[in-house]
């Protein structure tokens, strides 16, 4: 059947099909996959390159963190933002959730013939504004144009280089750790869907796309009483949403996760739009949120610092890691029952009626 022999949309949608493609086609055919602590096999938000350990301080082992991401989004301009801000924020956030300060970005663009120059310039300005926000320079780039029949909108790839004194992984979750979500879920995905399909949600819902380094930087130095890092794991719940990110963290860490529905920050408009469309808000993409897992003793302190930040004012402790149900995510519903939170299957498909 043709089904197995060609790339389908699901292969890029962040679900199980993509995991299979990465494992069976990409990893299998690349032989040299590591240059430091975190390599390709880890499938983390980025990778690290080990540089000679700091000669002045043998306790510290700085790692260069590198990440790359190609951005395609229809339409390239969406409520309150555009693909330029997204391309910079996405890469800055991938560095940030590994505990890395962004040092520099590169940017490669593929632009279809006929793309309006005004729009192009707006996109570049937005990239600059997002980069300025976290003080990261954009130092190299590449621009290609292609026939309008070959591509219908702009593609932007950004690569980010950062430096981390202690790399934070998405697999470091331990039983008892508390899980902080830095704000409301689903704003990006639902505002984009509503904008693209012309749904009037009767609200001023906009995308949450934002570079999070300034906020995350403020909690990285926090330590436990024993002097260990308070943050055990971080991830940004982009494609695949909170459900995708939490499942990945649970599986990689070998713990269970239980979240509380009543504690989940979600806007009323997002919640009703999801009900109407038959979409689970846990599976909707976010572009300006982070999941921060912290030691129980530091949870309130980290939360209060995050909440002081503009992008973290709706932050909440949404759950905790458990010994039981290893690799699985459960949710305590508002009526007190428990349900399974599954890894999303692929593209979100609204229902009919």
């Amino acid at each position: 059947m043709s089904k197995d022999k060609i790339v389908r949309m699901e292969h890029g949608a962040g679900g199980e099909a993509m995991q299979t493609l990465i494992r069976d086609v990409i990893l299998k055919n690349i032989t040299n996959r590591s240059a430091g602590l975190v390599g390709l096999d880890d499938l983390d938000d980025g990778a690290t390159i080990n540089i000679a350990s700091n000669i002045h301080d043998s306790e510290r082992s700085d790692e260069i963190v590198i990440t790359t991401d190609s951005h395609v989004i229809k339409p390239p301009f969406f409520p309150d933002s555009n693909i330029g801000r997204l391309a910079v924020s996405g890469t800055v956030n991938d560095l940030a959730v590994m505990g890395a300060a962004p040092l520099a970005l590169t940017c490669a663009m593929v632009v279809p013939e006929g793309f309006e120059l005004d729009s192009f310039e707006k996109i570049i300005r937005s990239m600059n504004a997002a980069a300025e926000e976290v003080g990261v320079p954009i130092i190299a780039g590449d621009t290609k144009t292609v026939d309008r029949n070959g591509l219908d909108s702009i593609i932007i790839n950004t690569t980010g280089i950062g430096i981390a004194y202690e790399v934070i992984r998405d697999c470091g979750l331990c039983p008892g750790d508390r899980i902080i979500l830095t704000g409301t879920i689903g704003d990006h995905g639902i505002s984009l869907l509503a904008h693209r399909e012309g749904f009037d949600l009767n609200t001023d819902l906009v995308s949450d796309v934002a570079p999070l380094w300034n906020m995350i930087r403020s909690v990285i130095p926090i330590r436990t009483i024993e002097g260990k890092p308070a943050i055990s794991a971080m991830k940004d719940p982009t494609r695949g949403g909170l459900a995708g990110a939490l499942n990945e963290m649970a599986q990689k860490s070998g713990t269970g996760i239980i979240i509380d529905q009543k504690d989940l920050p979600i806007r009323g408009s997002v919640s009703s739009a999801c009900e109407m469309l038959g979409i689970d808000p846990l599976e909707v993409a976010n572009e300006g949120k982070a999941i921060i897992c912290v030691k129980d003793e530091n949870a309130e302190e980290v939360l209060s610092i995050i909440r002081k930040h503009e992008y973290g004012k709706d932050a909440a402790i949404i759950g905790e890691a458990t010994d039981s149900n290893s690799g699985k995510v459960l949710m305590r519903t508002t009526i007190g029952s428990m349900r399974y939170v599954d890894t999303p299957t692929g593209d979100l498909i609204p229902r009919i009626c």
Partner: protein
Amino acid sequence: MMQNIEQKLISRINEHATPLRIMHVCGTHERTISKYAIRDIISEDVQLLSGPGCPVCVTPSKDIDFAIALARSGKVITSFGDMMRVPGTMGSLFDARSDGYDIRMVYSIDDAIKIAKDNPALDIVFFGIGFETTAPSNAAATLRGLPENFSIITSHKLMPPAMEILTQDTNVDGFLAPGHVSTIIGTDPYDPISEKGFPIVVTGFEVLDVLLSIAMVQDQIISGRSCVENAYPRCVNVEGNLKAREIMYHVFKKTDSNWRGIGMIENSGLALKKEFEQFDAVNVHADIYDKTSHEKRASEIEDHENDLYEGCICAEILTARAEPSQCPLFGRRCSPEDPVGPCMVSLEGTCYNWYKYTRNKGI
């Protein structure tokens, strides 16, 4: 601790629990029940059964094959999203799209009409599925006038005839009736079923609506009554939406219809009336339709009687004679990522919801 109203209803249902089989016939009810794990929190005695309430699940493979055959002959197929992944005998619409055919996801018939108007040189076919909820808007669009390059595959289904069949074939004590369908048809069409001794409560889709309606069916059983009650008065009234039905039956007529997994049910479908036959895809593209009908279909569909792949028990699932966990394919060969049966495809499908929300919970 103070109880909220949901918790009070749960306590009440559990205090009065006696062996009781309540069936819903709406995919959105199944979604609420699964998402809130209602089956886990109420007494095991009160069983919530899932009926044929998912329009995508009961669409016969022949209609899907017809749509794919049209796409292969160069027509543009427009369809609601959750129809895209349901396998016919030649794969799904998504498979056909990956093969390079022009298949587009739309949110309403109006989106499809816009595509037709913007592309006068293309033949646009709209895959019209759904219960009494989607049929009126398709009828209204037809009455407003359709572009010449536009036709419809009408695969609409009507709910009350299916419920009638279930009262004969399935061991069920009462029904939760679908809120959306009832906004159109009202509550009267359920009277003949309640008169046979089956309590029926029309209800909405919030967890509170579902819990309330379970308690109301339970009350009727305990007091030995069977009538139609409305737990969704904020949307549903006795007569329903007269205008919508008038428009619907101006354009469509009732016809016998094939339900995937169940079979032919008398007067349970809708077909375009003679005066709109120029928009009926079966009529406009009769050559392709005849070919699809006569071709040796079903390369992989082994269970011809039920229109299903070998080993798939969607027929039993759709009629609540089995639960998904009893299916040998469930979670193994059949998953939302690579579904075998229609119930695993749709967001409203019973298997999909079980897989998504209750599988491997191990609590």
